[in-house]
């Protein structure tokens, strides 16, 4: 398989198969009960919902330890949540067979990150060096400037608006008003009052951080772990310069 840098259209070929590496959110299933999964998912997704809209997800079966699952019911449930299931991993031979017959792919382990379910788990490995095949490195080179792109916003982000820095950091140099949402795959910096919602590391980067010059946010989230500030923001951080980061499962919001 050849990885091509230029996108020039080849008239002769009707299809062209290319290799690419994607980071996908992983949904770790911890229960065989579709109802339990649904209620948990609804609750967890509601805050960050829009950003997972139509997102591809990988279903991780490790925690089920061989227990059977109604895949067609699960697929319908995920579709109702606007998630697109692409495949399973860490399944038993029997689970994999059932998954395939439900139309899912079987994925081999790999450096995928767990973003939707926050139980601390050894299965969230770090990418191992040997996983970085030549192809991955090459892909990275080709996408240079794209994957590490930092998005800078200089206009106010207003109620109802949504800004997403895909594949990188987001820097906002104007107010983020209540009802506005700023989202990044990487870190978020806000150099003005932050009164809306900020979600960093939405594709699973648990190392992502949020920095706000004046913390007045409605919601802060890092890699799917979020805190809602419904009524009063605690006085030690309110209108202060803060950073938010994950300490294990715990989302810390602390003065700078």
């Amino acid at each position, binding site marked *: 398989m050849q990885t091509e840098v230029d996108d020039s259209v080849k008239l002769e070929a009707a299809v062209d198969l290319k290799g690419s590496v994607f980071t996908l959110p992983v949904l770790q299933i911890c229960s065989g009960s579709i109802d339990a999964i649904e209620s948990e998912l609804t609750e967890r997704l509601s805050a960050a919902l829009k950003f997972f809209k139509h997102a591809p997800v990988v279903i991780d079966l490790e925690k089920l330890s061989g227990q059977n699952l109604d895949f067609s019911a699960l697929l319908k449930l995920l579709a109702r949540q606007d998630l697109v299931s692409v495949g399973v991993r860490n399944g038993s031979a029997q689970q994999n067979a059932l998954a395939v017959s439900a139309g899912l792919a079987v994925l081999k382990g790999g450096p995928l990150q767990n973003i939707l379910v926050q139980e601390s788990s050894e299965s969230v490995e770090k990418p191992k060096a040997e996983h970085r095949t030549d192809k991955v490195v090459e892909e990275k080179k080709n996408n240079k400037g794209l994957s590490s792109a930092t998005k800078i916003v200089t206009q106010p982000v207003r*109620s*109802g608006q949504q800004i997403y820095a895909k594949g990188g950091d987001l820097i906002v140099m104007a107010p983020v008003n*209540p009802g506005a949402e700023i989202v990044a795959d990487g870190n978020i910096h806000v150099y003005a009052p932050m009164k809306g919602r900020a979600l960093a590391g939405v594709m699973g980067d648990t190392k992502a951080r949020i920095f706000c010059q004046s913390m007045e946010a409605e919601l802060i989230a890092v890699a799917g772990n979020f805190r809602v500030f419904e009524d009063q923001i605690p006085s030690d951080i309110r209108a202060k310069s803060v950073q938010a980061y994950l300490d294990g499962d715990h989302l810390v919001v602390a003065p700078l």
Partner: protein
Amino acid sequence: MAKVIVVTSGKGGVGKTTTSASFATGLAMKGNKTVVIDFDVGLRNLDLIMGCERRVVYDFVNVLNNESTLKQALIKDKHCDNLFVLPASQTRDKDALTEEGVERILNELKKDFDYIVCDSPAGIEKGALMALYFADEALIVTNPEVSSVRDSDRILGILAAKSKRALNGDEPIKEHLVITRYSPKRVELGEMLSIDDVKDLLGIPLIGVIPESESVLSASNSGVPVIHDIDSNSGQAYADVVDRFMGVNLPLRFLNVEKKGLLSRIFGN
């Protein structure tokens, strides 16, 4: 070059139509040839406030549908020679508001008028989007309360993202904040947001504060825009808005609770 000014807010009942009527009247009284268009198709309010409802024969939708000429539909104001009203229809034919149709009418009006004031309906649906789409400037009408400010913020986001100027990458729409139904007493009691609260959140220049006043209601009932009521504080506040729009630097007025006389202070009300 003619200017298109949208009067918008997101929220209903905040004073858009009241503001459109007085602002357009004020511009006309300063010698500008002005037309005010009611974009609230189906509700039709502006003609009542302007006191010309009995003279409506053809309306905006008729012109959009080529059922009448613009000339037939424009109603000349009874107080100002320079002022015309293009009323909305009473039917609910909102589909008539197409981008091409609205643009055609605005272009035709631009040949004759200095200012085209567009009175937007509430919400962020078709009518509101069409009213703001072609705007050069915008009056953002906001009441000093959280939900109104939030909706105005939304509209500002839409102006910055979905207007023609935004989509073409032209110079952005010039925005002006009009705070209406302002009650100094209720601000003092903490029942309303202060002017600074509203300004801080919206972050656009303030062009005027219109106090809550009974003269607005009586003006509406008699079909004479309140700016004609030069004895009322809201009429004067609207006149200030027009002056500031024309570039005159004026201090804000009517922001504080009127000081009561010594006797009434001693004896209460």
